[in-house]
């Protein structure tokens, strides 16, 4: 699979986790693509942590509004029924458990559901932005990422990088697998379109429990 295909597979599969009526926050990058695969007629409200719900598509060229961008700074639109608010309200929504699902990328995620996605000491320190609050506050935390980085596992026994939050991840979706974080450990529930169990196990450092009900990803 090429990069675009990988991203499409992941975004399509994440979209299937969302339910009618959900309030959802999508992280920057790959998670943003999830919005493209929400089925027609399904009502999902996207929250933008810089201060509104009802996040719509990117603004058309020439129709940008300087006062309306997403949390990545890109000009966007707001849908009918949306609402603007300040940052304190935004994080009351996020931290207070009023977001049904958040979808974020990861540098590393481990078998206890720990997530590291905000810094590589000495190399890259962008800051956590709203990620720490989102991961703690959202009812469901979905990590959407490529299974490995340059061939190296990102799903580890224990995160090495500084954590974004401890024990908050519920589901990991990659192009190779859907993995659920449970009290027993990581459960491999679905295989990607081109992946075998052996390949997933080889590309994952963490212990995997193979679900008795293992399926192919339906996308």
């Amino acid at each position, binding site marked *: 699979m090429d990069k675009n295909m990988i991203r499409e597979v992941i975004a399509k599969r994440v979209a299937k986790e969302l339910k009618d009526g959900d309030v959802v926050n999508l992280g920057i990058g790959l998670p943003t693509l999830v919005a493209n695969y929400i089925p027609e007629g399904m009502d999902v409200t996207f929250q933008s*942590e810089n201060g509104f719900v009802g996040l719509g598509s990117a603004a058309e060229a020439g129709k940008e509004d300087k006062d309306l961008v997403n949390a990545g700074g890109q000009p966007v639109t707001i849908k009918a029924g949306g609402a603007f608010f300040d*940052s304190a309200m935004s994080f009351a929504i996020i931290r207070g458990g009023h977001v049904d699902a958040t979808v974020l990328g990861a540098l590393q995620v481990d078998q206890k559901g720990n997530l590291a996605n905000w810094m590589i000491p000495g190399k890259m320190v962008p800051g956590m932005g709203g990620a720490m609050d989102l991961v703690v506050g959202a009812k469901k935390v979905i990590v959407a990422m490529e299974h490995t980085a340059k061939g190296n596992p990102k799903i580890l026994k224990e995160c090495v990088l500084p954590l974004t*939050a*401890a024990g908050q991840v519920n589901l990991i979706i990659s192009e190779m697998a859907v993995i659920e974080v449970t009290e027993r450990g990581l459960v491999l529930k679905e295989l990607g379109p081109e992946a075998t169990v052996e390949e997933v196990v080889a590309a994952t450092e963490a212990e995997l429990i193979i679900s008795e009900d293992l399926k192919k990803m339906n996308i």
Partner: protein
Amino acid sequence: MSKIVSINEALDHVKDGMSVIIGGFLGVGNPHKLIEALLEKGVKDLTIIANDTAFPEIGIGKLVVNRRVKKAIVSHIGTNPETGNQMNAGELEVNLVPQGTLIEQIRAGGAGLGGFLTPTGIGTIVEEGKTKIEIDGKEYLLEKPIKADMALIFGSVVDKKGNIFFNKATRNFNKFGATAAEVVIVEAEKVVEIGEIDPNSVEVPGLFVDFIVRGDQ
């Protein structure tokens, strides 16, 4: 007494070494003209408290690029590589704070609260040096309030009493930023007469605002 002053009169109150809350999110809702004037005035060694350091050529980012900032208390610096460069070179102190914690610290500062308890940051390096308190079996971090010497705020429409209406996503850190500083200067994109803003639409009551500068001139 009229609150409307020239930018230079307003910025007479900003001194080297002050702590300054600046509203905005990646440049949207930054008080751009106040920032430009601050640069021209040559104020330095500022401690800035803001969501982010924007982009090198936009808003707060310019204060960093021009080395006017001694310390930045922010949630995100990824869009302004110069912040990271100065931080790595030991020239700029950066305190990274989760966004929800930072805005709540500002809100607490303005609201006269001694702090608050948040689950955000538990089990991460954010908890280092902080008091942990257990409430009903769940762990929280005690986070303290933030107050600043100065707040530089943007308002879309401001009446001559200082009542502020915000357009769209410009509320961000502007709304509560206006509550948490000794001196509050608002840059008004548009100034209107008293009574022209429907009281239903006012998000920051004018009592918080000391000076209004015209961003439309």
